[in-house]
Every structure is written in C-alpha cells, then in structure tokens.
C-alpha cells in the first residue's frame, strides 16, 4: 500500500514531478497492472516501492513494511524485475539464478533446484549455461523474470516484463504470471503499455499519466463504452458513402467516412462483423477490405483525457520553489 507517494527529480533547475501524490491500496493477492505512456511515472513508482529511491514526500508500505524505514524487510518480501537486465553480462544464467537464490537465504541445494525449475519453466534450458551477454534480448528478458521469481516472493513487481518478447513467449509469460499468482497467492504489480496485456493478466488496471492516477478499474470496464473499431474499405467513394448511410442504422455506432473507407466504432464490433458484411453485400456494396481493432491504450486514453497519446507531452514544471503539497497517498501491496 502507498500513501501520498510523491517523487520529484530536479535536474538543471527543472523539477520533474514524476509521481504526484499517489494514493493506492493494493490488497494481498491482487494482480494489478500500471498502464501508462512513456514517462508517466510507472518505473519511478516501482522504484520507490522496491526501495531503490526514496519518496520526496508521502509514504508507502509493501507487505506491511515501510519502504523507507524497513528496507531490508521489504527487500526480503519482494521480487523485482526492472526495466534493465538483472543478470550480469559476464555471468552464466544459471549461476545468476543460484546466486540470487542464495542472496534470498536459500541453501545451496535449494537454490540449485529452484534455478533448475525456473530454467525449465521459462524455457531457458538451451541457454542457461551460456554467458548472459551471448543471449538474445528475449532470452535475457526471460532470465530476468526467472531471477525475480527465485524466492517465490510475496509481492512481485515487474516493470514492462513483456518488452522484447515474441508473441509466443509473451503468451508463455502471461501464463507463468497467472500460474504463479494462482499457486502462491502472491501480489503481482506490473507495468505495461498494452491494454491487451493488462486485460489478459490483471484484474485491476491503474492508468497513470503525468505521475497521477487517472483511472483505476477493471480492464473490461475501462474498455466498455469504447467499442471496437471496424474499418471497411470499398471500391469507390460512392460505395463507401452508400455503405456509411446504411451503417448509420447500427445502434450506438459512430460512423466516419474517409474517401474509400468507413470507420465504424461500436461495442462488440468484432462479433457483429459477419452480420454487417452480409448486410452490406445484400445491399450491393460488399466491402473489399475489413479490419477489426480492439480498443488500445490510445483509445482508453483519449476517452479518459480527451487527448490522444500522440498529443501527450512531457511538461516539466520550472517552478523549483512551488511547495510540494504532501498529499495523502497510499500504495499497498
């Protein structure tokens, strides 16, 4: 749990308010995703919760221990997979897993056994006994994740765990996280840029932007009301205009025409496509092209803030002497 967590960075007289008065309560055993664009403050929040940096103001406790006053207790309880590579490049993967286990107080034999298990689980058998620097990006990422799991942490923090993984391994990772969560009842807090990932994994999605929480809900509810995007292409502008007119009749749909294509935004659009196509074909304007897109982070963002992610800009405030009102924020894990 965290309370009024705030962190400023000051460089060249510019104050970046990376995290501003975060109040969060995460219960034991929850699986939570922090979703937000680059620079939103996700990593900074995780770094505070994992004792790497101290909050500028506010406080946080993780697994019942204060992140400033009981750092060692926090460290014993958590696993952390950062945005970088946790395994030393000059080391062998297996050695790093064993040494991480030993650091968490496992006996040598237990550390070995656990390392072997994780190598199996993360499909690292072929590369675990090679120098880490020779591993591919995705292999290294899986090794990082394995390192965070060695001691079956009560609270697991993952900073963009799926970055650099191919779709297959992304799915494996999601499966692994779900399993770990189900089997050990660990609390899992992860960050991601992808709504689908948050959706697939987490029961709860916390959307952050400019260091603030702008939404805290289930992915399903965040997306509801957004609808899927169905993009249809036609042979001529005339056809598309005619199709658009017909599509206007779909209840609660928003229709936009752009030359030869028509965008239809509607709830459960993907389920409706078959029917739509049949209907348009019957009307004599069969689409030549169909695309269906699920709502993305960008759509959720647009919905929440009224601006698109592309318009979002970093706005470091220059008022170095503005009082940093110590807000009540609580992040509980």
């Amino acid at each position, binding site marked *: 749990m965290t309370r009024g967590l705030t962190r400023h960075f000051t460089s060249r007289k510019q104050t970046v308010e990376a995290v501003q008065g975060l109040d969060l309560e995460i219960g034991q055993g929850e699986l939570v995703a922090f979703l937000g664009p680059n620079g939103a403050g996700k990593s900074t929040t995780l*770094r505070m919760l*994992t*004792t*790497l*940096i*101290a909050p500028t103001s506010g406080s946080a406790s993780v697994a019942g221990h204060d992140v400033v006053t009981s750092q*060692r207790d926090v*460290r*014993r309880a*958590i696993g*952390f997979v*950062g*945005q*970088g*590579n*946790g*395994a*030393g*490049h*000059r*080391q*062998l993967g297996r*050695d*790093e897993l064993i*040494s*991480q286990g*030993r*650091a*968490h*107080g496992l006996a040598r034999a237990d550390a070995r056994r656990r390392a072997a298990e994780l190598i199996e689980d993360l499909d690292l058998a072929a590369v675990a006994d090679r120098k880490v620097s020779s591993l591919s990006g995705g292999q290294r990422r899986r090794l*990082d994740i394995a*390192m965070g799991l060695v001691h079956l942490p009560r609270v697991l923090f993952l900073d963009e765990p799926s970055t650099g993984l191919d779709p297959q391994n992304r799915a494996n990772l999601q499966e692994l996280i779900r399993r770990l969560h189900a089997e050990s009842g660990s609390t899992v807090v992860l960050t991601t840029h992808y709504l689908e990932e948050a959706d697939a994994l987490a029961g709860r999605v916390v959307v952050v932007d400019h260091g603030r929480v702008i939404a805290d809900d289930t992915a399903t509810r965040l997306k509801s009301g957004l609808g899927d995007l169905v993009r249809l292409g036609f042979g001529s502008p005339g056809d598309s205009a005619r199709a658009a007119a017909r599509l206007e009749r779909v209840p609660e749909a928003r229709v936009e025409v752009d030359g030869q294509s028509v965008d239809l935004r509607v709830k459960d659009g993907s389920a409706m496509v078959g029917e739509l196509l049949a209907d348009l074909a019957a009307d004599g304007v069969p689409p030549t092209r169909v695309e269906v897109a699920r709502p993305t982070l960008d759509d959720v963002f647009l919905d929440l803030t009224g601006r698109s992610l592309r318009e979002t800009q970093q706005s470091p405030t220059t008022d170095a002497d503005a009082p940093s009102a110590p807000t009540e924020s609580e992040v509980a894990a």
Partner: protein
Amino acid sequence: MSTFVTDTLNVMNRELKPVWREPMAVVFAMIQPLVFLCLFAPLLPEMADGSALQWFVPGIVAMTALMGASFTGANLMEEMQSGSHERQLVSPLGRPALLVGRALKEVVPMLMQVAIIVAVVTPFAFDLHLGGVLAAAVILSVFSIGVGALSFALALASKGEDWMFWTVQQTLLFPTLLTAGVLLPVDDAPRWLEVVSMLNPMTYVVDAVRALFAGTFPVDVVLQGVLGAGVVAALGLWVGVRAMRRSS
C-alpha cells in the same frame, strides 16, 4: 555465520565466477605492466647492489596490483548500466557486503598476476626469494582491496557516466605510480615531489615489497608498508561502503 559474512561471500563468489571461467582475461588485463617490463628492463642501468631487474620487478608487481584493482570499477559500472546492480540493490544483500565482497575479490586476480610476473622474470637475472614474495603478496592483497574499493566508489559516484570514471581514474593513476617510485627512483627528486611521494601511501607499499622481494626483512620498512596498505584499505572500504549505501 552472520548475515554480513554470508552476504559478502555470496557477492565475492559471484564476482569470482568470471575469473575462474576465463583466467586468460586476467593475463590480458596485465598487458600494460608486461609491456613496461619488456621496454624498461633493457634500459635499466646496472646497479651497484645487484641486478636492476631486482629493483624494477617489485615495482611492476605493485603497478599491476594498482592497475588491476583501479580498473575494476568499470565492471560495476557495466552492471549499473545494464540493470544487474539495481537487481542486487533490491535483493536483501547488505549494502556493505555488496562493496566488501567485490573488493575482497580483487585479491585473486592480483595474486594470479604476481605469480605470472615472478614466473616470467625468474629465468632471467632475478633472484627469487619465495618467503619474501609471499609476505609481499599479503601486503599487496590489503592494498588491492583498498584500491578496488576506491575504484568501486568512483564507479558509484560516476553514476554510470563512463567518461567521468575513466577521466578520474586515469588522472590519478599515473601520478600515483610515478610518485610512489615505481618506474624511477624518487630519491633525487625536487623537494615538492619528495613531499608528494611521502604522502602517497603506495610509496611505502612499494618500498616494503622491494625489500621483501630482495629477501630482506627490515622491520620498519615492512611495517610502514603494512600501514600504507592498511590506510588505503581502510579509506577505500569506508568511502566505498558509504557510496554503496547511497547508491540507487
């Protein structure tokens, strides 16, 4: 065993893994001292009290220890950049152990290098006094731990900025070597240089190592050497542990 000891051993073992696995890297790391040895040795004047090599080799040994240990911060720097330092900071390993374990590890490559140098020069005009060499290795171990700790502290202070680390390291390295009388005697140096030399703890380490390599055991010189190395170690570990505690 206390947590500190267990943690320190854990950190040290981890740091030693690449050393055991690739011992040749230790040899490559000493190219520079070996080149100095090859280039300078033929230029050395014959000395009244025996071969010049006898005087020069202990200096090269001390130089190797200084260089090896002072470069070692670069390894930590790499870990700071990659994220594996961060991972260790989040683990329950004690901060002092993260520094001390690394510094203690410096002894191993240093001893390997001393062994290589001694093995290389013994067939030439160099008298091996094994007892003295071993005693000198003890002093050099303490010295290496200190220099290694200072190098790690510098890496931490540089916050992953390579240029900062290398600029400071290179700026300090050669003056330290020269004023310690490693390559040339400082006996006839101007007064100011003599003072700098006297303030340089490495001077005493080099003097002690020379005496011991020559098979002599002048108690005062040896004690001063132990003290010089001890001062470096104490300072290095103190500064290093402080830097590690503040690291994030």
